[in-house]
């Protein structure tokens, strides 16, 4: 694989019927490329949590999957409200999700921590009013 494979999908805001579709498609792609199951599983968690954050908090956005010889990169971009206190947002259990969303089982405040645990590198570029750009890298030859 010399050219990286790139897959891009739009994620709609508050579309819970479609939510999880991006993650499912990305995981299928990774599986069909023959990547190790462990990498596929970790990537699925990262994509799912990033996708849900775009759906619930980000007001819709775009997700991109990039597969290179030695790594899988997952990018999630939205132009939503951004994150005011990233350190707080990264804390396990912190969530600003409203009640109706929590009742559906979202908003456990474990999304960003789940991403962090499963990615080797995580970069988040965000500011209030500026949207959120997340980039997570999983190396094929490194463990968690």
């Amino acid at each position: 694989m010399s050219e990286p494979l790139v897959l891009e999908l739009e994620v709609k805001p508050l579309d819970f019927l479609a939510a999880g579709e991006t993650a499912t498609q990305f995981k299928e792609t990774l599986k069909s490329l023959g990547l190790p199951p462990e990498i596929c599983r970790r990537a699925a968690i990262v994509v799912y949590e990033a996708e849900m954050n775009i759906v619930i908090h980000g007001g819709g956005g775009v997700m991109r999957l990039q597969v290179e010889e030695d790594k899988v990169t997952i990018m999630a971009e939205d132009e939503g409200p951004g994150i005011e206190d990233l350190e707080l947002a990264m804390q396990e259990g912190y969530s600003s999700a409203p009640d109706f969303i929590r009742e559906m089982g979202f908003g456990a405040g474990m999304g960003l921590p789940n991403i962090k645990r499963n990615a080797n590198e995580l970069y988040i570029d965000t500011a209030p009013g500026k949207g959120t750009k997340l980039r997570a890298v999983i190396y094929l030859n490194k463990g968690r």
Partner: protein
Amino acid sequence: MKVKEICEKLGLNVHVQGDLDKEVHQGVVGDLLSFIMRTAPEGAVWVTIQNHVNVAAVAVLKDIPFIVLASGREPLQELIDSCRKENITLTSSKEDAFNLCGKLYELGIKD
């Protein structure tokens, strides 16, 4: 134990038949989707009271072949459709998650 044996022994209502001959040795219980994303073992049976289409998405992503909706939840049509598409066995029971898990444990689903 095979999915279909578990369905019989627990008297579950089967709404979608996935791979009924699939062997299941582990289980997970919970309603927080991120928690299930973190902890569910591959191939587990999942007991939950969440009844919406994202349950199927989480099951697909975690390679969960078997869902039990507890406490008398009747699955929504979108969830049924999604499970059918993904070949996931979808069942429901009047019993609550606590009792269902106890019975699963007695059947040897212990992890």
